C-alpha cells in the first residue's frame, strides 16, 4: 500500500520527465541571450524566471486555443546555465498527452511580442529554435513619400519654365513694339527729306515706287 502511494506520488514527475526530453518530437528548444541583450542590466536566470516563462507560455496557449492552461501544463527540462532549455506543453484535459508542436508554435508566434516583453528581450535574444519570427507589418502610407517630393520639385520646375517662356514672349513683344516705333520715326524723316527736296544722296534701296533704275 505504501509503495503504491509512493509510486502514485512519483508518477507525475516521472511522467513529466519522460514527456519532456531534449529533441522530443513535440518539444521546442528555447535559447536566451540575456547578457547580450541587457548587458549591465542582465538578470539572473532562476526558478522564478522559469516560473514566469511557464506562465507566459500558459497565457499564450490559453489565449490561442481557448482551453485553460496552467503553469503545471508547461514542462521544462534540460536546462543549461547559458540559459537554454526544452519545453513541452501538456494538454489540460489529459496530463500525459502533449499538445502538438504546430499548435504551440502558432501560439508562440501570435503572442511573441508579449512573451518577448515579459523578459525585456527581442526575437533574436529570446530564440525559439525553429519558430520563425513575426515581423511587424510594414506601414504603407497612401501616397509614397517620394512621389510627394517629386510632385513638389516638378511643379517648381514647371513654374520656372513657364515664367522664363512668358518673360521671353513679353520681351519679344516689347522689342517688336520698339522696332515699329523706330520704323515710324524713320518714315517720318524720309518724308521730310523728300518734301524739302534735299540734294542728299538718294538711296534707291529706300524708295519703293521705282524698283528699277531709269536708264
Amino acid at each position, binding site marked *: 500500500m505504501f509503495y503504491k502511494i509512493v509510486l502514485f506520488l512519483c508518477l507525475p514527475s516521472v511522467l513529466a520527465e519522460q514527456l519532456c526530453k531534449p529533441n522530443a518530437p513535440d518539444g521546442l528548444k528555447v535559447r536566451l541571450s540575456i547578457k547580450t541583450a541587457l548587458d549591465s542590466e542582465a538578470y539572473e536566470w532562476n526558478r522564478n524566471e522559469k516560473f514566469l516563462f511557464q506562465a507566459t507560455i500558459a497565457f499564450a496557449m490559453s489565449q490561442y486555443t481557448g482551453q485553460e492552461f496552467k503553469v503545471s501544463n508547461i514542462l521544462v527540462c534540460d536546462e543549461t546555465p547559458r540559459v537554454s532549455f526544452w519545453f513541452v506543453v501538456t494538454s489540460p484535459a489529459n496530463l500525459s498527452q502533449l499538445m502538438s508542436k504546430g499548435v504551440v508554435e502558432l501560439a508562440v508566434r501570435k503572442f511573441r511580442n508579449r512573451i518577448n516583453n515579459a523578459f525585456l528581450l527581442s526575437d533574436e535574444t529570446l530564440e525559439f529554435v525553429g519558430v520563425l519570427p513575426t*515581423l511587424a507589418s510594414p506601414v504603407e502610407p497612401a501616397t509614397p*513619400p517620394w512621389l510627394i517630393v517629386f510632385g513638389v520639385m516638378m511643379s517648381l520646375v514647371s513654374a520656372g*519654365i513657364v515664367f522664363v517662356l512668358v518673360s521671353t514672349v513679353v520681351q519679344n513683344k516689347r522689342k517688336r513694339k520698339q522696332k515699329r516705333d523706330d520704323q515710324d520715326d524713320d518714315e517720318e524723316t524720309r518724308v521730310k527729306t523728300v518734301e524739302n527736296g534735299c540734294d542728299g544722296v538718294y538711296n534707291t534701296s529706300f524708295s519703293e515706287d521705282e524698283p528699277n533704275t531709269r536708264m
Partner: protein
Amino acid sequence: MAKDARDSWGSPMEFVLACVSYAVGLGNVWRFPYLCQMHGGGGFLIPYLIMLVLEGVPLFYLELAIGQKMRLGSIGAWTAISPYLGGVGLASVVTSLYLCLYYNIINAWSFWYLFHSFQSVLPWAVCPANSNLTGPLEECEKATPTQYFFYRETLNISPSIEENGGLHMGQALCFLLAWVITYLFIVRGIKSTGKVVYFTATFPYVVMLIYLIRGMTLHGALNGVKYMFTPKMEELANPTTWINAATQIFFSLGLGFGSLIAFASYNQYHNNFERQAIIVSFINSGTSIFSAIVTFSIYGFKATVNYETCLERYISFGTEAGAFPVSHLCLIFCLFQAVEGAGLAFIVYSEAIKNMPLSQLWSVLYFVMLLLLGMGSMLGNITAIITPLRDFKVVARISGVCLLCLLLGLGFTTTSGNYWFTMFNDYGATFSLLFVVLIEVIAVSYIYGIRRFEKDIEDMLGHRPNWYWKIMWAGVSPLLLICLFVFYVVNYIQGGTPTYQAWNKDLQTEYPVFGQAFIGLLLVSSVSCIPLTALYVFCQRKKHAQQHKQQLTVNTVAA
C-alpha cells in the same frame, strides 16, 4: 540690318565656372578613387599628374583656342580649319548625342534616391519583409539591402539583356524631371546656363568639404586614408597604370565632345583662355584627389564597421565553436572590394550613409551633390549639340532636341535598361573620342599648321604660345594618343566577344547578336563621320570645279 550678334557669357567667370562644372563630374567621384585603389594608392598620383601635364592641359588649351578663334560650334569650327574636316565636328556631335541619351539616367537615379531620402528609415537600410511576414525577402537576404534597393527597387533589373519588361514608372518620372530641368537650364541659351553654373560648379565643393569633415571624424576613417596614401611603387612598372592614368585625364576633362569648343565660341575674342585652361585642368584634377580622400575615409569607415560587426557575430558563437582566431576570419570579410561606377555611388556610399547618425541629412546632401555634378556635365553635353545645330540653322528649337533625347532615353528606364546603359557607357564614347581627339591634334598641328595656329593665338591673346605648348601639340600628345588608341584596339580585339554582368550570375555573359551589332553600330556611326564627310566634301568640290570649268568654256565660246 546687322545679323544677330552671337550670344556671349555675362563675364569670363561664367565661362570658367561652366568649364569647371562640365569637367568636374561623376567620373571624378566614381572612377578616380577606384583607379587609385587599383593602382597602388598614392603612387597613382605620379602617372596621373604626369599625364595631366603632357596630355590634359595642352589638349584642353587646344580646344578652347579653336572655339574662341572660330566662334562657331564644333562642326563649323572644324569646317573652318579645313573643309574636309567637318566630319570631326560631326563625330563630336554624334558622340555627344549618345552621351546625352544615357547620361541623364544617372541624374534620374540621383533624383530617385534623393526623393527616397525623405523618410524616417532610409529604404535601403533594411530589407522589406516577405509576404508571410516571417522574415526579410529572400532576394534581399542573398544580397544586401542596399544592393536590393538599387537593383530591384530602383532598376527592377531583368535577368539578362534579352528579357525586357515594361517601363519602370518611377524611373521614367524621374527621367522626365531630369530632362525638364535640363531644358530649363538651357532654354535661354548661354544667358541662362551662365547663371546656373554659379551654383552647379560651387555647391558640390561645399558638400564635399562637409563630407570630408564628417568622413574624417568617422570611426575607422583614417585606416582608409592611410591605405590610399601608402604608395605601392611596383604598380608604376605596370603599363596598365599609365594607360589608365592617361585615359582618366582624357575623359575627365571631357575632351573631344565639342562642349569645350562650344563654350569657348561664346567668349570675347581677346579672352585670356590660356590661364583659364590651366586653372580649370588643375581644379579638375584637384577635385579628383579631394574626392578620393573623402571616398577612402568612407571606405575605411565601412570596412571597419564590417570588421567589427563580423567580430561581434563570431564572438557570440565563439564559446561554442572554441577559441579560433576570429580576427583573421573577419578580416577576410572586411577587405573592401574595389567598386567603380554606379556601384560605388549608389551602393557603397548609400551603405556607408545608412550607418551614420542623422543619415537622412547626409543622404540628401550627397545626392544633391551627385545631381549637381551630373547636371553640370549634362549642360556641357547638350550645349555641344545645340551650338553647331544653331550655327547651321538646322534646328532652332531646343525643345525638339530635348524631347527627342527624352523619348529615346526612356528605353533606359525599362527593366533591361541598365544593360543598355552599361553598353553605351562602355562603348558609346570611349573609342570614338580617342580617334576624334587624335585627328583634332594632328589636324591642328599638321594640316592647319602650327605656325598659323600660333598666329591666331597671338591675335587673340597678344603673345605667342610657349615652346612647351608647341612641343606638346606637335609631338608628345599625338604620340600618347596613338599609343592609347592602339592599346584600345588591341584590347578590344583580344577581349573577344564583348561580355556583360547579368543579374544573379557570377560569370560574365556574352552579349547576344543584336547587342554586338548595336555595339558595332555605336562605334562605327561616330567614327565613320570623319571619312564620309571628307569624301562628301571632296565630291562636292569636284562637282563645283567641273561646273566652273563648264561655265568658263561657255564664256570663251560666247566671246
